[in-house]
């Protein structure tokens, strides 16, 4: 049972930077707990892969310590860490059969033949590769090849963690679901720490117990899918998770009330006085902004889009764009729409970071 600890891990590809913006991976403290499935979620170029490569040892971090359990492995070469990694594009050894491919990591570590055979059979069974075991690997389809890559990652029983670097990019959408649920099952069966890099929020939220949202080299929030949805700690998490993303309005906050664009609205908590001259916003997800026939803030309707399952109204509140959900019984919408904002799910952000309020 090992967990992986990042102790002030940071990385810059050229020397020690003067300030935070010079880091490709900004200083990060985190403990990856054994047995959990994590997703690293963020846009392209946000440092997800760098973080993954730091853990696997393909990149040596310029600062900080990396611990596997109690052991400091920061400078240990990849092959001496008990880490498996699966890459974006399937890597298979062309000249070998499927079975030989799966056995390769064990063979390199000089495991006895019987152990190898047993383990290969187990993994092949888990990934539905048994029928192909004696075929040449290079004639297979992309998803079968990626399954072999996955299998090579899982075949070692001593791994501390299996890292996935967007492993389903090359797979057909229909097969993606199947492979992902297979991965989930494997995760439950093997009780491993898994870290899964992706830029697809659905993939991240369905796969992981905990999601690490990254932006611009920084881990902006680490939490369960529900936490990311209901309590985004950073405006970026609000934008990035959810479709469409969170609404943000510039505001002035006094106690439990917020003044937005000349209107006053209630907040779910009481806030201390905010410093002057800083960027203060209130954020609320479209799911908690509802069109209503009763009392509400008057907004101008710009367009309505019907997603089938729900209808969204793109409105403007005194010039500020906002997305609201329309209730099912509200058939037609005029030029103005009264909107009701759920105070309990409205958050206050000071310079993009969520401010905790006191319960009212």
């Amino acid at each position: 049972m090992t967990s992986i600890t990042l102790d002030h891990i940071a990385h810059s590809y050229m020397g020690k930077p003067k300030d935070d913006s010079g880091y490709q991976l900004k200083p990060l403290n985190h403990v990856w707990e054994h047995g959990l499935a994590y997703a690293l979620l963020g846009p392209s170029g946000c440092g997800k892969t760098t973080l993954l490569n730091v853990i696997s040892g393909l990149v040596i971090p310029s600062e900080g310590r990396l611990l596997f359990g109690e052991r400091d492995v920061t400078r240990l070469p990849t092959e001496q860490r008990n880490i498996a990694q699966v890459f974006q594009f399937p890597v298979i050894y062309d000249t070998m059969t499927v079975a030989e491919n799966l056995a390769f990591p064990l063979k390199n570590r000089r495991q006895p033949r019987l152990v190898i055979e047993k383990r290969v059979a187990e993994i092949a069974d888990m990934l539905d590769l048994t029928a192909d075991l004696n075929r040449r690997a290079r004639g297979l389809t992309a998803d079968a090849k990626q399954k072999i890559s996955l299998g090579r990652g899982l075949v070692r029983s001593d791994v501390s963690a299996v890292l996935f670097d967007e492993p389903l990019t090359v797979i057909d959408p229909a097969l993606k679901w199947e492979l992902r649920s297979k991965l989930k099952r494997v995760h439950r069966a093997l009780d491993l720490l898994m870290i899964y890099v992706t830029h697809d929020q659905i993939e991240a939220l369905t796969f992981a117990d905990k999601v690490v949202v990254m932006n611009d080299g920084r881990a902006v929030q680490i939490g369960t899918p529900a936490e990311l949805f209901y309590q985004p700690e950073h405006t970026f998490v609000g934008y990035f998770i959810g479709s469409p993303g969170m609404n943000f309005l510039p505001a002035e906050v006094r106690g439990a009330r917020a003044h937005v664009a000349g209107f006053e609205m209630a907040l779910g908590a009481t806030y201390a006085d905010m410093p002057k001259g800083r960027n203060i916003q209130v954020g609320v997800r479209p799911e908690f902004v509802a069109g209503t026939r009763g009392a509400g803030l008057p907004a101008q309707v710009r367009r309505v889009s019907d997603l089938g399952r729900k209808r969204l109204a793109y409105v403007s509140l005194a010039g500020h764009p906002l997305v609201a959900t329309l209730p099912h019984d509200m058939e037609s919408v005029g030029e103005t729409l009264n909107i009701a904002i759920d105070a309990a799910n409205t958050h206050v952000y000071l310079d993009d970071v969520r401010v905790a309020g006191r319960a009212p």
Partner: protein
Amino acid sequence: MTAKPINNRAWFFVLPVLGFVLFSSIVPTMTVVNYSVQDTMGANNFFWNGDQWFRDLLNPTTAIGQRFNDALFRTLAFSLTCLVIEIPLGIAIALCAPRKGWAVGPSLVVVALPMLIPWNVVGTIWQIFTREDIGLYGAALNGLGLHYNVTQDAISAWTTIVVMDVWHWTPLVILLSYAGLRAIPDAYYQAARIDGASRWAVFLNIELPKLQKVLVIAVLLRFMQTFMIYTEPFVVTGGGPGSATTFLSIDLDKIALGQVDLGNAAAMSLVYYLITLTVCYVFFTIMTQLERRRDV
């Protein structure tokens, strides 16, 4: 429903190419075929000789058959020696070449330099280089007490020609292998590190299989070029001492232009051409078949 119009006028566009090929290949080849089935007593009088030139050539008990056999054996031995040295050496050097940084450009240029030198200049350079009186290489070897003399000693002549070819043409294998190696995505090397593969296992399981296609090309090119080698041994040794380095092309030249024995020379050049073609065809077919079988 209208019938599909048939229009073969596109063939006219092929005519210029046909005309060019006619004069560049077909007419000269057919001239050789013509000589190979006729005999002459001079004065431009030719008479039919059937397949007698070919019978003589392929019969080792005749003088010309004996001569052809020896030259063919020498040429094959030379090709094989060069391939055995150049292919592994080329791969090895390509593996050591830098992959990134400022050193890539200069090192590739330095490696490619020998290839840019014209054949007869290469011959002249080595002819002077290996002289035992004023040549750096020849004089140095003799100074070390070794018996080295290109014009008198068969072994000296042979090693010189082989070393010269290795120096001149290993760069081709290096460049081809280097290009092949660069085409391997980084993920393969990273995966191999994760899998705990040794350097040798990486070479055997990743690099060599990925190099297979360029190596087929490299072997084909090097076989053809060494099997047809002419200029460099002609300049350095002139086919000697004796006939130690008289390869097929040099022998052919002696028979055709030295002895003006057109019938024998024509038969020999046709057989020579067919051997080159057959070896390349068989090698290429076997390699592509092997590749295809591996996919199943």
